[in-house]
C-alpha cells in the first residue's frame, strides 16, 4: 500500500536530518533487494518456525465467548512467541537484513521493553552488538525487562531527556544513529519513523494477519467479522489488519491508550486527541499543543505511551477503512484481570486494551459473528504495575 515516495496518502515521508538520508536510502535498496530473495525468505521462515515458534496459535476463547454471550472470540496468541510478544517478528526480519547489509551493531528504542528484549535476543543469536535506549521512567516501570536485556548481552541506556518515556527513547536512538551509521542499523520497533521503516516493519508483522486468515478459514470456513488489536505506534495492529485491508467485510479496530480518559491531559490516544503533524521522521497524527509542541502523553502501558501513530494507520483512519477507539487504564486493567481469570491467560497490559474493547462489542454482536483479537504479548512484565494500580506491592525481597 506504500506509494512511490514512501507515503500513505499524505502521510509518511522522510523528515530526518541530511546526515541520515544515505542510511535510509541504503536500507531501502537493501530491503528491495532481499524482500523477494528466496534465500533470505528461507532463512527468515526458518527463524520464525524454529526459533520464534511460528505459526502462533489461534485459540478459541470459549469461556470468554460464553460469558460475554455474543460473537465468537478467537485470540491470536502472539504472546506465545519466543521473547513473549509480536516484536520478535519484525526484529528477526530487520536483524537478518542488517546482517546481510554488513552491519555489526543494532540499536533500538523500547517502551515496555518488549522490543528491546526482542532486539537483544536477535543480536545474541546473530552475534551482533546491541544498545537499547529506554526512557528512565520505563526502566523503573519495566525493571524486569531491563534485566532481561542485560542478561542477553545488550547495553541499556536510560534516557533522561524530555519526559523520559518512549518518545524520548526514539529521539535518543535517532541521535545515536546520526553519530554512528557505518556499522549500525537502527532496528525500529514500530510502523513509524521515516520511510522505509513503516513499510518494512509492516511487512514483517503482516505474518500475523496472514496466519489469522488461514487459521480462521480452516476453523470457520469464513472470514472474521472484526479483527481487533491495541495500537500505540501500531505494529501489532497493522500486522493484524494488513491481509484483511482488501476484505471490506472485515472490520479493522485499533485500540488506543486513553490513559485517564480522552477528556484529560493524561492520555496517549493519538487519533482521538491528536492532529496532523511532522515528527520522528513522518507526517502523521500527533498529540501536540497549538504551537506544535509534542504533548507529554500518559498511559499505564509503557508500550502505548507514545504521542504519535504510524502513517499507514493515519491513512486507514482518514479513508475510513479502520476504526480507532480509546480504552482507559481502568478498562485495560479490568480486562487484564478478566482474561487471566476467564481463560487462564495473562495478557500484556497493552493487549488488554484490545481485550477491553472486545468485552464492549462482543455482547452486542450475534453468535454467528467472529472476532479475532491479537494478544500482542504476555503479561508477566505487567504484574507489578497492575498490582501497584490496585494498591498492592509485590516486590520480591
Amino acid at each position, binding site marked *: 500500500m506504500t506509494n512511490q*515516495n514512501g507515503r500513505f496518502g499524505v502521510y509518511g*515521508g*522522510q*523528515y*530526518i*536530518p*541530511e*546526515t*541520515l*538520508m*544515505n*542510511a535510509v536510502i541504503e536500507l531501502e535498496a537493501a530491503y528491495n533487494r532481499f524482500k523477494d530473495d528466496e534465500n533470505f525468505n528461507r532463512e527468515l521462515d526458518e527463524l520464525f518456525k524454529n526459533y520464534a515458534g511460528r505459526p502462533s496459535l489461534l485459540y478459541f476463547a470459549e469461556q470468554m465467548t460464553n460469558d460475554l454471550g455474543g460473537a465468537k472470540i478467537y485470540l491470536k496468541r502472539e504472546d506465545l512467541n519466543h521473547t513473549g510478544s509480536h516484536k520478535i517478528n519484525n526484529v528477526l526480519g530487520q536483524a537478518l537484513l542488517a546482517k546481510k547489509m554488513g552491519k555489526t551493531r543494532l540499536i533500538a528504542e523500547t517502551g515496555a521493553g518488549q522490543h528491546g528484549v526482542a532486539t537483544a535476543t536477535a543480536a545474541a543469536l546473530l552475534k551482533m552488538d546491541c544498545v537499547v535506549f529506554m526512557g528512565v521512567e520505563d526502566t523503573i516501570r519495566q525493571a524486569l525487562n531491563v534485566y532481561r536485556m542485560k542478561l542477553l548481552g545488550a547495553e541499556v541506556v536510560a534516557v533522561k*531527556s*524530555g519526559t523520559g518515556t518512549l*518518545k*524520548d527513547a526514539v*529521539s535518543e536512538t*535517532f*541521535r545515536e544513529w*546520526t*553519530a*554512528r*551509521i557505518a556499522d549500525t542499523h537502527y532496528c525500529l520497533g514500530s510502523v513509524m519513523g521515516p520511510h522505509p521503516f513503516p513499510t518494512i516493519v509492516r511487512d514483517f508483522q503482516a505474518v500475523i494477519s496472514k496466519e489469522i486468515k488461514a487459521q480462521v478459514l480452516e476453523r470457520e470456513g469464513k472470514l472474521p467479522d472484526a479483527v481487533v488489536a491495541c495500537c500505540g505506534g501500531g505494529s501489532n495492529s497493522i500486522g493484524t489488519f494488513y491481509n484483511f485491508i482488501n476484505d471490506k467485510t472485515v472490520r479493522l479496530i485499533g485500540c488506543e491508550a486513553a490513559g485517564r480518559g480522552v477528556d484529560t491531559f493524561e492520555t496517549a490516544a493519538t487519533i482521538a486527541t491528536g492532529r*496532523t*503533524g*511532522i*515528527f*520522528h*521522521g513522518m507526517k502523521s497524527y*500527533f498529540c*501536540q499543543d*497549538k*504551537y*506544535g*509542541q*509534542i504533548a507529554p502523553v500518559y498511559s499505564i502501558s509503557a508500550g502505548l505511551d507514545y504521542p504519535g501513530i504510524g502513517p499507514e494507520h493515519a491513512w486507514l483512519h482518514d479513508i475510513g477503512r479502520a476504526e480507532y477507539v480509546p480504552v482507559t487504564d481502568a478498562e485495560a486493567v479490568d480486562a487484564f484481570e478478566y482474561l487471566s481469570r476467564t481463560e487462564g491467560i495473562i495478557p500484556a497490559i497493552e493487549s488488554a486494551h484490545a481485550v477491553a474493547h472486545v468485552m464492549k462489542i462482543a455482547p452486542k454482536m450475534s453468535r454467528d459473528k467472529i472476532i479475532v483479537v491479537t494478544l500482542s504479548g504476555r503479561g508477566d512484565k505487567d504484574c507489578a504495575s497492575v498490582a501497584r494500580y490496585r494498591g498492592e506491592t509485590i516486590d520480591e525481597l
Partner: protein
Amino acid sequence: MSDRIKTAFARGKAFIPFITCGDPNLETTAAVVRAAVQNGADLIELGIPFSDPTAEGVVIQAANLRALQGGVTTDKIFDMVRDLRGDVKIPFVFMTYANVIFSYGAEKFFAKCQELGVDGVILPDVPFEEKDEFLSTCRKFGVDLISMIAPTSEQRIAMIAREAEGFVYVVSSLGVTGVRSEIKTDLASIVASIRANTKIPCAIGFGISTPAQAQQMAKISDGAIVGSAIIKILAAHGEAAPSFVGEYVREMKDAIKNI
C-alpha cells in the same frame, strides 16, 4: 536570495551565532542578539524552541526545555523580532523543526517572516526529498530555505548544492549539535564539491567553540556557525549573559576577520 544574507557574506568571513529564543526569557534573548551584533556578528540564527529537538545535543536540548518552561511561543518570538528589527539590520534566520511551522500554518508563518524581515529558515528535519513541504511558500514570501550538507551526503552534494538558497549549512561532523574537541571530517573537499555546484556561500556549523576552530573552519569556507558554546554561556549566566556573549562573539569574530 535575500539581499541581507548576500551583504552579510560580502564583508569577509561571517560569524554566525545561534541563540535559542526565550532561554531563559525573551528580554535576555533580545539583549544577547544586540550584544552579538555590536560585537561583530554577521547573521543571527534564532532558534524557535521545539519540545523534541532530535538533531540537538544535550546543551541545546536543555535550552529548548528552559525556553518552553518559561512560556515562550512562536507568536511571542515574532513580537521580539519585530522589536529587534527597529535597530538590528543584519540578517535573521530561524532554526526550528518542521512541526513548529506546519502547526502554525506555513502560509501564515512565512508571511510573518516576510513582514518582520526574517531572511531564511533552517529546518534540520526537512531534507532535500521533503523540501517541497515548504519551498513554494518560502518562495512566495521571499524567505530562503537553507539547505544542510553532512559528512555522509557524498553523491547528494551536487543535487543539494545546485538548488540551495541563501547559504549552504555544512554540518562538520556526524552526530548532533554540541561542542567537540576535534573536527576530523575532510571539510575542504566537501566545500570544494559544493562550490563546484553553486555560487552561494557555505558556512560550517556543529562542534565549533574555540577561536582556533573558527579560524580553521573560516579558512576553508565562508563562515562559522556557533551554537552550543553560546548556549553554555547563557546556561551559566542567565539574564546576565549578554555582556559575556558579546565578549565571546568579539573574540570569535576577531579570530576570523582577517582570513
